[in-house]
C-alpha cells in the first residue's frame, strides 16, 4: 500500500503553509487602519478608555512580541481571546463552525446530485437537444450573483409556495437539514454549473476516446461502456476541480450565510474584520486554511483510491 504513504508525511508539509498563513494574516489584520478598542467603545470613546482596553488585550505591545505570544498560545492549543465577545477564540469558533460545515457539505452533495446526472445526460446525447439545453442552462447559470439567487429562491419557495423556512438554522438534525435546503441549493446551483461543464467535457472526451472504442470493440453494451469505463475516468479530473471549489466555498459562504441567517463562520469573520477583532480574524483564517488544506488532502486520497496510476 505504499501509494498511500503520503497520508503519513503530507501533514508535515501542511505546517509551513499554516505558519505562512498565520504570519500573513497577523500582519494583514494589523495593517488595517482602525483600532479594536475604539470600535468597542463606539461613539463614546475617550483616549483613556481606549488605552485601558489596548493594555488589557496586549495591543500596546510591539507587534513582533504579539506574534510571538500568538505562536506561544497556538503551541498550547489556544488562540487568544476575542475582544468583542470576551471569550476564547477557539470556543467561539466551536459555537459557529457547525452551520458552515453543514452548509458546505450539503451544498457539495446537492451539487453532485444535480451535476452528475445532468452531465451524463448531456454527454450521452452529445449534440442532441438535451445536451444543448444542459449546456445553455449551465453556461447561463454561472453568472447569477448568489445573493440575488438566494432572495429569488426565498421569495419563490418560502414566501409564495411556503415549502421551506425563510431563514435560520434548526435545532434537531432533521430540522437543520430542512433549514439547509435552500441555502445549499443556492450554492449548489452555481457550483453544479461548473461541475457540469467540467464533467460533460471529460465524459465526451472519454466517450470518443480509445477506452470507449476498445470497450465497444469488445461488444460491451453502451451502459457498461459509460458507467464502468467512461464515468470513473471522467470523475478523476472533476475531483480536483471540486476540491478547489470547496476550498473557495469554505471561506466564501458569508453571503449565503448572511441572507439565510445561518449562524456560521462567514458571518463571524465579517463582523470580526469590521470590528477589528484581531484574534477572531486570525483564528477563523487558520480554521479556514486548515479546512482547505484538509479538503485537498482528502481529494488527493480519493484520487489515489480511484486512480491507481497516481502517486503522491
Amino acid at each position, binding site marked *: 500500500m505504499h501509494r498511500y504513504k503520503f497520508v503519513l508525511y503530507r501533514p508535515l508539509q501542511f505546517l509551513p503553509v499554516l505558519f505562512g498563513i498565520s504570519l500573513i494574516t497577523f500582519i494583514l489584520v494589523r495593517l488595517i487602519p482602525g483600532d479594536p478598542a475604539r470600535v468597542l467603545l463606539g461613539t463614546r470613546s475617550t483616549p483613556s478608555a481606549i488605552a485601558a482596553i489596548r493594555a488589557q488585550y496586549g495591543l500596546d505591545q510591539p507587534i513582533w512580541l504579539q506574534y510571538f505570544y500568538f505562536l506561544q498560545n497556538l503551541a498550547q492549543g489556544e488562540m487568544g481571546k476575542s475582544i468583542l465577545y470576551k471569550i476564547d477564540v477557539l470556543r467561539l469558533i466551536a459555537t459557529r463552525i457547525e452551520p458552515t460545515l453543514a452548509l458546505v457539505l450539503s451544498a457539495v452533495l446537492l451539487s453532485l446530485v444535480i451535476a452528475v446526472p445532468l452531465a451524463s445526460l448531456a454527454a450521452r446525447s452529445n449534440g442532441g437537444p438535451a445536451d444543448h439545453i444542459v449546456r445553455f442552462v449551465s453556461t447561463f447559470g454561472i453568472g447569477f450573483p448568489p445573493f440575488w439567487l438566494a432572495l429569488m429562491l426565498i421569495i419563490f419557495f418560502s414566501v409564495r409556495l411556503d415549502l421551506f423556512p425563510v431563514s435560520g438554522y434548526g435545532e434537531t438534525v432533521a430540522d437543520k437539514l430542512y433549514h439547509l435546503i435552500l441555502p445549499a441549493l443556492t450554492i449548489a446551483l452555481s457550483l453544479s454549473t461548473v461541475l457540469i461543464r467540467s464533467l460533460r467535457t471529460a465524459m465526451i472526451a472519454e466517450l470518443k476516446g480509445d477506452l470507449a472504442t476498445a470497450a465497444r470493440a469488445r461488444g460491451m453494451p453502451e451502459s457498461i461502456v459509460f458507467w464502468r469505463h467512461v464515468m470513473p475516468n471522467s470523475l478523476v479530473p472533476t475531483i480536483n476541480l471540486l476540491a478547489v471549489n470547496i476550498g473557495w466555498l469554505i471561506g466564501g459562504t458569508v453571503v449565503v450565510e448572511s441572507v439565510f441567517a445561518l449562524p456560521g463562520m462567514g458571518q463571524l*469573520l465579517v463582523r470580526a474584520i469590521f470590528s477589528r477583532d484581531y484574534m477572531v*480574524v486570525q483564528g477563523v483564517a487558520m480554521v479556514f486554511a486548515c479546512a482547505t488544506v484538509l479538503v485537498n488532502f482528502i481529494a488527493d486520497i480519493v484520487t489515489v483510491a480511484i486512480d491507481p496510476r497516481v502517486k503522491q
Partner: protein
Amino acid sequence: MTAALAPAWKAVRRRPTLLAGLILLAIFLFVALMAPVIAPYDPILQNGDLRLQPPSWSHPFGTDNFGRDIFSRVIWGTRVDLQIAVIGVVFPFLIGTVVGTLAGYLGGKVDIVFMRVIDIILAFPFLVLMLSIIAILGPGLQSFYIAMALVGWVSYARLIRAQMLVLKTADYATAALSLGFSGPRIMFRHLLPNAIAGSVVFSMSDCVLVLLSGAAISYLGLGVQPPVAEWGVMVAEGQSFITTAWWITLFPGLSIVTLAFGFSLTGDGLGDLLGVRE
C-alpha cells in the same frame, strides 16, 4: 491585415458558440464606448419627482429610489463592469503567466518556492484577504483589483506551470537548448506561446468569477464609490426594493448574467478553437 484575419474569421464562423460569445461581448463593448450617446439620461442625476417609477416608454428599465434612470445607469455601468472583468483578469493573467513560466521551466528551488507560495495562497481564505485589503486601502475598484491580482494569478501560474513541465521536455525545447538559445528566449518565445492557450480559455471563465466576486463585495457594501453606476452595486442597493420595485435589481442583475454568459460562451468557443480541455 484583412488577409491575415481571414482564416481566423473562418475558424470563428464555423463555431456558433464562439461567434455568439464574441457578438455579445462586442455589443457590450459598443455600449460601453458609446454610453454617452446611447444613454438617454444622466446616470447620476437625481430627480425627486420620478422616484421608483416602473418601466415605461420614457424609462424603459424604470427609475430607482433617487429617480435616476436605470436604463442609463445600466448603460454607464457597462463601462465599469467591463473594466472590472478585464482589469480583474489582466493582472492575474500577467503575473501568473510569468510565475508559471519561470517555475515550470526553471524548476528546482524557484519552483519549490513558488509552489509553497501558491500553497499558502490557495489555502488562504479569500474573504479575509479581500476584506483586509479593502479595509487597508479603502473600498473601491483599486483595492478590488489588487486583491484579485494577489489571489488570481495562482490559477494561471498553475496552468502555465503544468504546461511548461510538459513542453520543456518537448524536442523543440531541447533543440533550442542545443542551439545555444538563451533561457528567456526559450521560455517566452518558444514555449510560452504554446503553453498559453489553456490560460486564455480559463481567463474567460475567470472574468465571470471576477464579476461575481465584485457583486459579492458590493453586497457587503464595499463596492465602487457612489454615485458611480455599477451593476453589482445597483443590485445590492436595489435589494431593499426587491419586493416592491423589482426592476431596480432585475436589469442590472440580468446585465451581469448576460455579460457573464458572453464570457462563458467565448471561453467555450476558444477552448474548442484552441483545442483546450479544461
